[in-house]
């Protein structure tokens, strides 16, 4: 029934624009640059992995994206996931929190606790992470526009609980440049936004040296319409922009580069994806060593979460997404990732239920426990196809990075909206290809069910009461806290922001005084202004 039309002789070009041959031999490997960049796992240029033993020593961290309602609801979900074998947390915040609005802001109405948990003050973090051992379970905060504030809040919460901040591990997404391209939780204009990222890098390098303040995301650029090669190339351009800012502040590359990390997507063609990761690992190592003069191996490591895959999931025949997710997990394992997470099969519809989140966890656990995916490092190495494609993907990424530089660099292109226009034009092209059947999607343009059954998706309930509870709690905190201390901290914040000093110490002080996310954001908006989105087609 309705299989896609695919003549056998048709030329195959992968999404990144590289031709895929029906057969690869040693000659192809040699012609593409040979085995020179392959090396050994744990050694420069790290194509085969950043560690010698990889998963034999420790399997990837499993970190499903989770959070909804108020902090107490989310705390329960965290504990459920941990009880089911999850080894890290990946925190989802609601949109008001992500763009720096308090729960009682009129613009927050109808959005509180909807796509993540609602956070106003330090009290909320205390509740959200209550009873979770932050040494055993590392926490990744998916926060960007308001990242400096929430990093300060996380460090303050951990300190209050008695953890040594110098030893504290954890990650914040904190990649604002990609928010201008896709995802859209920006607050401030481009330049002060980059400065804030720099403030967090500088502060963490000195005060919380094991904390990862930035996870540069190719992920959302890919979701917005980028090819796999562009995804990685643009992410590297963005990471370089942050690194350049840090170096301008007088940090040496080895002081901060080891704490940069990445977030990449895993949907698409298995081999193109795996080669993307192998290629990217060696390209990033080369950039850090040759362009930035990094000496520590850790500064050259492409540490990453290879996860998600939302862009590949379909609204049609949602249960088929369970199988897609399993293949995406395989891609992630073969890519040598440090951390894995999967979009759950119902995520084209709703935030995951406990059931679907657990299925995603089980999918990853199968690879570890039953499929032998942790036994041997980089098992695809030496394949004529994989080594050739890895070389070709690396070349493609280098070309894209050179083109970006030639057009004035990533910061300029993002500011002007040219990257946004490019990827959205590609997304449109891809949607047309899917609708015409040229790009096969099972259940969408081929193998459709004769009669589409009712979707068996159970909706995660949205609790209208959560908003009221959250607003009441914020009002209570505002009444109970020492408002003189809050005012003093906010005044210091404004002063430091205006004077161009690092705002992190003032944010930590304000957070500890229970200043709210909205209050701190307002001070910064008064100094920095708000971003105006360039609309370009």
């Amino acid at each position, binding site marked *: 029934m309705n299989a896609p039309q695919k003549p056998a002789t048709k030329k195959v070009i992968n999404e990144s624009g590289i031709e895929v041959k029906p057969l690869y031999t040693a000659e192809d490997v040699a012609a593409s640059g040979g085995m020179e960049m392959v090396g050994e796992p744990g050694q420069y240029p790290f194509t085969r992995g950043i560690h010698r033993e990889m998963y034999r020593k420790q399997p990837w961290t499993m970190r499903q994206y989770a959070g909804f309602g108020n902090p107490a609801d989310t705390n329960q979900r965290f504990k459920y996931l941990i009880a089911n074998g999850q080894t890290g947390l990946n925190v989802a915040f609601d*949109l*008001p929190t*992500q*763009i720096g*609005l308090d729960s009682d802001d009129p*613009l*927050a*109405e*109808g*959005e509180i606790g*909807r*796509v993540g948990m609602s956070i106003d003050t330090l009290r909320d973090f205390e509740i959200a992470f209550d009873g979770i051992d932050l040494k055993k379970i590392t926490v990744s905060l998916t926060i960007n526009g308001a990242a400096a504030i929430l990093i300060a809040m996380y460090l303050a919460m951990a300190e209050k609980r008695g953890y040594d901040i110098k030893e504290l591990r954890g990650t914040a997404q904190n990649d604002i440049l990609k*928010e201008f391209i*896709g*995802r*859209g*939780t920006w607050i401030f204009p481009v330049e002060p936004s980059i400065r804030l990222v720099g403030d967090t890098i500088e502060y963490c390098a000195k005060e919380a040296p094991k904390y990862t303040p930035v996870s540069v995301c190719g992920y959302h650029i890919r*979701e*917005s*319409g980028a090819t796999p090669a562009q995804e990685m190339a643009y992410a590297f351009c963005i990471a370089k922009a942050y690194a350049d800012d840090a170096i301008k502040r007088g940090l040496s590359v080895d002081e901060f580069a080891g704490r940069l990390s990445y977030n990449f997507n895993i949907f698409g063609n298995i081999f193109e994806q795996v080669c993307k990761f192998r290629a990217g690992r060696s390209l990033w190592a080369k950039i850090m060593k040759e362009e930035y003069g990094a000496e520590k191996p850790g500064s050259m490591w492409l540490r990453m979460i290879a996860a998600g895959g939302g862009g590949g999931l*379909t*609204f*049609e025949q949602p249960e088929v997404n369970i199988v897609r997710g399993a293949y995406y997990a395989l891609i992630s394992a073969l890519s040598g990732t440090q951390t894995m997470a999967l979009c759950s099969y119902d995520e*084209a*519809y*709703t935030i995951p239920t406990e059931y679907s989140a657990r299925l995603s966890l089980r999918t990853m656990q199968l690879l570890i426990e039953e499929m032998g995916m942790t036994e041997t490092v980089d098992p695809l190495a030496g394949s004529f196809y994989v080594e050739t494609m890895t070389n070709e993907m690396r070349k493609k990424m280098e070309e894209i990075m050179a083109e970006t530089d030639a057009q004035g660099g990533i910061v300029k292109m993002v500011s002007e909206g040219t990257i946004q226009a490019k990827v*959205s*034009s590609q*997304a*449109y092209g891809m*949607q*047309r290809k899917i*609708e015409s059947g040229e790009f096969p999607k099972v259940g*969408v343009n081929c193998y459709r069910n004769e009669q589409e059954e009712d*979707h068996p998706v159970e*909706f995660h309930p*949205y609790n209208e009461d959560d908003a009221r509870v959250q607003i009441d709690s914020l009002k209570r905190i505002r009444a109970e806290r020492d408002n003189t201390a809050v005012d003093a901290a906010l005044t210091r914040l404004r002063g430091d922001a205006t004077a161009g000093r690092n705002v992190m110490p003032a944010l930590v002080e304000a957070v500890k005084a229970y200043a709210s996310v909205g209050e701190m954001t307002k001070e910064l908006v008064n100094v920095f202004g708000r971003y105006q*989105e360039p*609309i370009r*087609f």
Partner: protein
Amino acid sequence: MNATERRIKVLLGKPGLDGHDQGAKVVARAMMDAGFEVIYTGLRQTPEQIARIALEEDVDVISLSSMAGSHLPFCRKLKPLLEANGLTDKLWVIGGNLPAQDHEALRELGFKGIFPSGSKLDAICEYIRKEVK
């Protein structure tokens, strides 16, 4: 489209705080290719802003793209504003992540065209062309 026919003018808005604009931009391009004039608002529009732009631009179609679940509270606020501005004779359309159980409520709020994720671009454009006379 013959020469005397006026181009259909569409407001395509991103309501609320949702930052997922990939779909909205894809639909905007499809509408432009279909010959419509498209006013794309960009992110984070309030109900007041949507109503004001619809009035000022004298559009034929008021369309929204919502991916983050706040479509019902938003449309409840938007409806009286559109009514107060005399925009009830325009075609109101909404697309995005819209669960089937919400469609009836959206229709009652005046959204005649409902295009959940998975809708085809040509279907959206054909619907608008048919409904705007």
